């Protein structure tokens, strides 16, 4: 498969994925550098992203919106390009510009991309995702380990399963 490794690090609070492509590092680089290519993979087909700006150089900024079944979503996403070393590495801060009052919104997250040639003319891309909020991610990971909380949620799961209301959502 394309994705060869996934690593969730509770110390560094990151999610890292390795992927291998039958392509050159330059081609993989262009998936990030070319806004028309970027638009074809950043958002899912049901919520495609449209990049209204993509200033792909150190210090540059990108902005995009996504379009769902009911039209454009109310939030604007942005990238701040922190560092580039073509075609080897990309460092981006990404976040959302919200319309509403952003009082309890976390700071932006980060993406660190490394692109390396490997055997057979293939390319390995590593994406390190630094979570929008690291304390929150720690919490997520801890939830799986804290017996108290896990147990409690398990119990509640059971209770909910009993009187399951037909999930009317969606």
């Amino acid at each position, binding site marked *: 498969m394309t*994705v060869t490794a996934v690593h969730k690090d509770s110390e560094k609070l990151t999610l890292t994925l390795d*992927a291998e492509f039958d392509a050159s590092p330059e081609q993989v680089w262009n998936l990030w550098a070319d806004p028309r290519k970027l638009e074809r993979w950043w958002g899912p087909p049901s*919520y495609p992203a449209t990049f209204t700006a993509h200033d792909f150089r150190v210090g540059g900024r990108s902005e995009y919106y996504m379009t769902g079944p009911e039209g454009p979503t109310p*939030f604007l996403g942005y990238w701040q390009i922190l560092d580039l070393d073509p075609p080897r590495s990309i460092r981006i801060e990404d976040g959302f510009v919200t319309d509403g009052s952003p009082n309890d919104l976390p700071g932006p997250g980060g993406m660190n991309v490394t692109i390396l040639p490997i055997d057979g003319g293939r390319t390995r891309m590593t994406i390190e995702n630094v979570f929008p*909020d690291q304390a*929150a991610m720690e*919490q*997520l990971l801890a939830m799986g380990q804290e017996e108290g909380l896990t147990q409690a949620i398990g119990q509640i*799961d059971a209770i909910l399963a009993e009187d399951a209301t037909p999930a009317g959502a969606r």
Partner: protein
Amino acid sequence: MQIVPADFDRMFGALADPTRRDIVRRAIGGDEGILELAGHYPMSFAAVQKHVAILERAGLITKDRIGRRKVVRANVEGLRIVRRLLDQYEELWRSRIGRMAELLAEEAPGAQKGIER
């Protein structure tokens, strides 16, 4: 399935604070009002009230009226969503990488078009 990123952000943001995480923990199967909750923390009632409000906005807790009392309870559905966030993040990236591979495959036949940068 698509979850609006703004909601993710709000949940992440709400859980970014150790006091709020502790409130959520206590609110699971808990039976305390804000006043009782406030007793656990070395801060003002108003400060605890503010934390509770942020958690409520994020959909992680609800204030239920029981008789005369208002009890702070964890919103299980909200917590479940949080629990799944990490996996969903992985899924998000897996699908992005899948689309990347497709794009590259489209370019493959004439490969090495050598796009300079």
